[in-house]
C-alpha cells in the first residue's frame, strides 16, 4: 500500500517537504539563536557551485552540493575574525559562490540543466530515491543535533562557560557547520538554493513567541515548518504557483500570525 501511495507525486512531494522542514528545524533554531542567518545563505548559495561541479564530473548532485556547502562553511569559519567584518565576508562569499555557480552551469553545454529547478526547487519532481536521500539526510542531521544538543546550547550561551566544562566551542561550531551542509543538501530539491535560508530562519522565528524552552521552540519549529510545507504544497497546486516560494509564503504567514498572537498574549499576562 505504501508503495502505491508513493506512486502519487503529491504524496512524494509532501513527504519531501516534511522531511526538509524537520531537518531544518533544530538547526534553524541555532541559526536564529546564534545570528547565523547570513552564514546559512552563504552555505546555500555555495550549493549551486556544487551542482555545477557534480554535473561537470557526472557525480550525484546531492553529494556535490554537500561537499560545496561544507567547503564554503569551513572557508567562512577559517576566514572570520581576520580583518573583514563578518557580514562583509559572508556577503562576498555568498554572492561569489552564486555567481561562479551560475557561470559554471552555463559552461555545461552537453547537459541540459534545469537551472530554475536548482534555484527555486522542484519538489513536484521528487523521485523515490530523492525521498530516501532527503529522509536519510534529515535523520542524520537531526541525530547529530540531538546528540550534541546540550553542548551546542551551552556554547551558544557563552563559549567560556562551555570551555569551563570541558566543551570545545570550535568543535561545536564544526558540528553546526556539518549539520548546515547536510541540511542544505537535503533542502535544495524542495525549496532550491535561493530559499533555503528562508526555511532555516522563518519557522524558528514563528515558533519563538510560543516557546518557553529551547526544546519547545525546536518542536514548534518542526510543526510550523511541516505545516508550511504541506500547506504551501496544497496552495501551490490550487493556485498554480511555484511550489518552493509558496511554501516560504505560507511560513511567513504563520510567522505573522504567531508574532501577533505572542504580542496579544503578553499584553494579557
Amino acid at each position, binding site marked *: 500500500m505504501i508503495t502505491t501511495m508513493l506512486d502519487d507525486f503529491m504524496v512524494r512531494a509532501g513527504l519531501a517537504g516534511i522531511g526538509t522542514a524537520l531537518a531544518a528545524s533544530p538547526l534553524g533554531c541555532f541559526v*536564529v*539563536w546564534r*545570528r547565523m542567518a547570513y552564514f546559512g545563505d552563504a552555505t546555500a548559495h555555495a550549493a549551486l557551485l556544487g551542482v555545477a561541479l557534480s554535473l561537470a564530473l557526472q557525480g550525484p548532485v546531492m553529494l556535490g552540493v554537500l561537499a560545496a556547502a561544507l567547503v564554503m562553511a569551513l572557508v567562512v569559519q577559517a576566514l572570520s*575574525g581576520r580583518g573583514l567584518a563578518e557580514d562583509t565576508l559572508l556577503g562576498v562569499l555568498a554572492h561569489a559562490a552564486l555567481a561562479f555557480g551560475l557561470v559554471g552551469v552555463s559552461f555545461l553545454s552537453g547537459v541540459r540543466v534545469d537551472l530554475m529547478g536548482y534555484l527555486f526547487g522542484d519538489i513536484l519532481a521528487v523521485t523515490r530515491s530523492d525521498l530516501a536521500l532527503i529522509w536519510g539526510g534529515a535523520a542524520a542531521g537531526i541525530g547529530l543535533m540531538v546528540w550534541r544538543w*546540550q*553542548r551546542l*546550547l*551551552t556554547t*551558544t*550561551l*557563552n*563559549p*567560556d*562557560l*562551555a*570551555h*569551563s*566544562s*570541558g*566543551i570545545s*566551542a570550535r568543535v561545536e561550531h564544526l558540528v553546526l557547520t556539518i549539520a548546515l551542509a547536510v541540511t542544505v543538501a537535503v533542502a535544495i530539491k524542495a525549496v532550491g538554493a535561493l530559499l533555503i535560508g528562508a526555511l532555516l530562519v522563518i519557522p524558528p522565528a514563528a515558533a*519563538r513567541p510560543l*516557546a*518557553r*524552552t*529551547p526544546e*519547545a*521552540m525546536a518542536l514548534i519549529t518542526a510543526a510550523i515548518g511541516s505545516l508550511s510545507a504541506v500547506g504551501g504544497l496544497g496552495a501551490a497546486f490550487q493556485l498554480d504557483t511555484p511550489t518552493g516560494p509558496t511554501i516560504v509564503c505560507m511560513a511567513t504567514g504563520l510567522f505573522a500570525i504567531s508574532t501577533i498572537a505572542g504580542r496579544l498574549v503578553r499584553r494579557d499576562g
Partner: protein
Amino acid sequence: MRLITATDLTLQQSGKTVLRDVDMHIDRGEIVTLVGPNGSGKSSLIKGLIGALPPVKGRVDTLRGLRIGYVPQTLHMDGLLPLTVSRFLCLPHRHSADAMQRALNEAGVPDLGRRQMRALSGGQFQRVLLARALLMEPDLLILDEATQGLDQPGAAAFYSQIAKVRAQLHCAVLMVSHDLHVVMAASDRVLCLNGHVCCEGTPDEVQDAPEYRALFGAGTQGAFAIYRHDHDHNHDHHDHHHA
C-alpha cells in the same frame, strides 16, 4: 593540594600579547583575587586557565578531574533564545529538581526556577549564574567580575553569599573584581596584574607593595581608582602618563 598551575604562561588575544610569563597556582580551599587596571589581562588569564584561550607559550596544568564552576561577567541574553532558569541550570549537565532547588537556595534566589532568564534583574541574574556554578559541585569557583552592573550594596551582598557558599563547599575561589577593598579583604592571596604579574601576596602585602601603589595610588581606600596604562610602565616612578 594544587588545583591548577600556570607556568610561564603567555597569552594573546587577536594577535596581541595581553599577558606574559605568568606563574601562578591555586590550592584547594583558598581564595585568590586578581586585581589590575582595565586591559591588564585579568579576564584573559581566566580564559587561559579554563582553556578557552590556548597559550602561545607556557602551560596550564589542572588536577585530574578538576570541577570548575564558572560565573562569567555576564551572559548576553537576547530575546531570541527562550530559557527558563531551571532549564539554564541544566546546562551542560542535567540535574534533579531537588538539586536545582538546593542550588537556588544556596545562591539566595529560591523562587526563580520558573522565570525566564531574560526577565531577571541584574542581581538575580548573577545569583542564578552562581547557582549553576554550584550545581557543578566545583573544586574551584571562578568569578569574572561577577558583580559588574550591581550597585555597591548588591555587590557586597553577593560577596557575602560567596563567602557563605565557600564555607559550605570548601571549594577554592578565584575572583576578578574592580571592587578592590571588598574582595581583597576576603582574599587569602592577591595577584596584581598589568600585562604580567606585578606583585602578589596577602592583601596587606600587596597593598603596601610599590608596584600596586604605582597602579592604584597610595590611598588604596579609593576602590575605584582605575587607571589605564597604554605603555609599559616603570614601577619606580610615579610620574608616568595616563591615556
